[in-house]
């Protein structure tokens, strides 16, 4: 009796495992070499670099735009030389602290340094 049940279980298990391997099944493709997140990050970086005209945060190297006072990546203070308007259009939501426009991917507000990525624990 126990043996019979064992064989039934074994058959069921084998079926589930072998089924995807049968010819004619079209499986979902595996991961591409580059993930969406990586592409998005690269695009963000490029967009920022173009808008900033070659300015880079002295601490982390992230590109910034004229008028920014804090690095949007590391939150570090930026050299206060460039005054002027940001060439990027104000895009949607504002900083909860000062209301300045934010860009996708910002971790810190570029104007007041408010920590958007304000998360102290994993």
């Amino acid at each position, binding site marked *: *009796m*126990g*043996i019979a*049940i*064992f064989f039934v*279980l*074994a058959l*069921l*298990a084998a079926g*589930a*495992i*072998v*089924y*995807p*391997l049968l010819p004619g*099944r079209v*499986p*979902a*493709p*595996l*991961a*591409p070499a580059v*993930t*969406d*997140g990586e592409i998005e990050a690269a695009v963000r970086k490029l967009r920022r670099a173009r808008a900033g005209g070659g300015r880079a945060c002295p*601490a*982390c*190297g992230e590109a910034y735009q004229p008028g920014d006072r804090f690095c949007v990546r*590391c*939150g*570090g203070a930026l050299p206060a030389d460039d005054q002027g308007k940001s060439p990027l*259009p*104000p*895009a*949607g*939501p*504002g*900083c*909860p*602290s*000062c*209301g300045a*426009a*934010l*860009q*996708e*991917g*910002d*971790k810190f507000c570029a104007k007041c340094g408010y920590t*958007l*990525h*304000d*998360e*102290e*624990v*994993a």
Partner: protein
Amino acid sequence: MILAEIGYGALLLALAAALWATIASILGAQQQRPELVTSARNALFVTAGLSTLAALALLALLLTKNFGVAYVHDHVSTYLRPAYVLAAFWAGMEGSQLLWLWMLAIFTALLVLRRPTWDRQLRPYAMAVLAFTQAFFALLLVAISNPFELLPMLPAEGVSLNPLLQNIWMIIHPPIIFAAYALWTIPFAYGLAALVTGKLDSGWLLGVRRWSLAAWSTLGIGILIGALWAYLELGWGGYWAWDPVENSSFIPWLVGTAFLHSAIIQERRDMFRAWSVGLVTLTFLLTVFATFVTRSGLIQSVHAFAQSAIGYYYLGFMGLILAVAIGLMLARTRELRGSGQLGDLVSREFAFLVTNLLFLGSAGAILLGTLWPTFTEAVRHVSATLTAENYNRFMGPLGLLLVLLLGLCPLIEWRRTSAERLLRNMWIQVAVGVVTAALLLLFGVREVWVVAAFAVVAFAAATIELQWAAGVVTRMRTAKENLFVAAIRASYRNRRRYGAQIIHVAILLIVAGVIGSQAYQDEVQVVLAKGEQTEVGGYTLVYKSYTYGQPEEHGNKVRNAALVELYRNGRLLAVMEPERNLHSNVDGTVTEVALLTTWKEDLYLVLAGLEPDGQAAFQVLITPMVLWLWIGGLELILGTLMAAWPAASRSATVTVPAGGESTGQQAGTSIRHRAARR
């Protein structure tokens, strides 16, 4: 006996399926053959089903009290209450390992149930690690500690469960601990997958963040429940004795805590990549080690090691995992180098590094202390055990240093902070600490370390409260909200941060409870005849009546109990009935304590002895602030839920509406955050 056969058969098949899942997922990823990965995924569902079947079979055998099965015979009896049959499931090595396997298989199935998203590349390798771990436990169960092993005869009665384990908290403590161990396997599996694929940026950390949080807090709660059980059941008035079993679960918790903090640094500053992977590997290995230590008796005696080959299985598995992890880390040295640089000596990165080192150091010291008797026995043939005082001597200062850092870290900025800026940031907190110390001195506390410890806790608590207050005030100003709305919204919108802060407050509550209870436990022993009374710490205990040598019907227990009325200022607070019983299956007597808990202190009444003529010896312990530990535990759950609440977990990516217009909305309310999983 058919149930035993089915259970064992299910384990055999689960072992085969888990091995296949390991091989198929690795091959599938290496050769880009998705059908193999799908097959591995199905195999993982199969192991989940089969281990569930095995667990149900064992449960059924225990419930039907089938004494022909050795495990059932050893852990239950005809008179064992049905609720404790559950506790019997995980009372021994075999059942514990089955529980481990079962939980791991269920969590793995839940994980792979979701289609891969962020983890498309990592998933097959993570599956392989999870499947391999399942295969290890299945192998143990099949080959060396079979819970379905049959006895050559059919005994009429079982040994029954140790009465110390017959406690409501012992029903839930082990499953919580093993669930935590199984949960830790998932972040570890992804860490290893990140090593294999070389995708060592913070992607995997963010992806498994909720699993890590769940694992961490489950383990913390499990440890606290274990402490609660020890306090209620062991009858010595304490909750923590630094015994090997307690230590073995505390060590991975410490290392896991370091992992969580290291993950934040990696996420924020792209540093500590090697730390994160290394710490999660270590945490996992320590959970396996803990399982082994708890049930094998290795610490009690090295000779336990030789009695069964199981130790070699565990050592082999841990050695293999360690070798693979170290090998991969060496091969990935380049990818393990993050872009962030360690800042100044006074920078938050550095403070976190010190925190991590302290956590790791504490874990290492406790591990060494735990293994010390084994070492000395092996080398000098005398087992030398460390006392609780030994542990307290180094863990006290280390713990306080960590609490100090908990209060200091948020005040230190990333990269660097000037000394005057730091001082400006923290004078209020320092003042709170000093005032606390002064008040304690004023109220007659004279022990320097108690004053210092409470001052440090107050300092840290002040930092957390001030941070929160600052967030609320900012909101009130910028979003023009009233205090109440601002408080709710500030916390709600930053759940991850404030969830963490709630957890930190919970830890502070627990630390305060530990300090209070360690410093001021008051112990009195009295012998009373029936009708006599005594005064202890402002309470009046009146010994009213007793029960001597009353055998329990349908049981293995002879009951001795004393009935005591507890008064304070002439008011009846409680009727307490401590017991000291004889059980047929253990040597000596087992106490059941009576307890009165208030937020200020616990009155813990132990019946130390009872003579046939009713003369009773009582041990009365008054321990301050024990309740704070349990409240801290509840708050820990709350904080974790808040930090991990799905919609709140965000990658801080601001969603830009198509077209990029509309800034007209009120500042602060228009931010939408995208969920971390993309």
